[in-house]
């Protein structure tokens, strides 16, 4: 089967002053990051890089609250993208200024589902770290509850016909 294979790069945006929510104009969200990636690839790899990357380039997922972004590119040109992402130094805020930021690449996956599975597991590991940074008893109890909720494993239903041997 002939098809275009892609790679999905999962990155976390880090702002210098630890912004909790990245306030971006709602409809311009995906375009802002797409423009930033395209500009940096043009600067680093020139017209050649733009020509290679643009057909498969697309921003697939942005989460404002956890600051996660997922960018897609063609499989052959993954290195162009991953080498360019660390050079993104600022993103425009909604009011015409520039925010200093850094995109930390977390994971590269072959499909959106694979990236999502990894992201769930990553968030499970990060939650206890966030618990340590909580101040105040009320916050801590809420954190503990969400850690507990996220780690619940579905219980297998009892098999009614099985005989129980007493041990």
């Amino acid at each position, binding site marked *: 089967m002939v098809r275009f294979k892609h790679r999905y790069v999962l990155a976390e945006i880090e702002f210098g002053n630890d912004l909790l929510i990245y306030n971006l104009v709602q409809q311009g969200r995906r375009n802002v990051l797409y423009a930033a990636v395209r500009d940096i*690839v*043009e*600067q*680093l*790899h*020139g*017209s*050649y*890089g733009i020509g290679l990357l643009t057909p498969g380039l697309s921003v697939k997922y942005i989460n404002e609250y956890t600051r996660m972004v997922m960018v897609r590119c063609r499989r052959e040109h993954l290195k162009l993208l991953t080498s360019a992402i660390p050079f993104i130094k600022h993103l425009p805020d909604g009011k015409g200024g520039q925010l200093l930021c850094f995109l930390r690449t977390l994971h590269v996956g072959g499909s959106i589902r694979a990236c999502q599975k990894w992201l769930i597991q990553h968030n499970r590991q990060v939650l206890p770290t966030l618990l340590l940074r909580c101040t105040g008893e009320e916050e801590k109890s809420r954190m503990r509850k969400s850690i507990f909720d996220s780690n619940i494993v579905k219980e297998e239903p009892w098999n009614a016909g099985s005989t129980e041997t007493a041990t």
Partner: protein
Amino acid sequence: MKRIVSKDDAPYYYLKVSLEFEDETVAVDILTFRTVIMKAMMSMYGEVGAAIQIDILKYEGETMSAILRVAGSSAVKLWGALTLLSYYDEKPCAFRVHQVSPFLMALASSSRQLLMSTV
């Protein structure tokens, strides 16, 4: 007698090029020439391309022709970038690539410059 066959890219490629401006009175010195080459690589291959090592082995100011040396893996990039340059400093110009060879000796005497006597 031992025969050695090498299948990789040659270590260096040598290009004989000359720069032509549409306005014939323009002449550039060697430093400006190097800047023109760098601008060509920068526009086509970005900063990564502009960082490729390109040496000017010989430069003639009057004819603006030069012999360049570049790593074998980047020869095609340089050749393409030079070919596609059309402007420098808002002046229309063009690079003519006369000869490309992995051996410098080949640029010294090439059959293109042979003068056959026609009687």
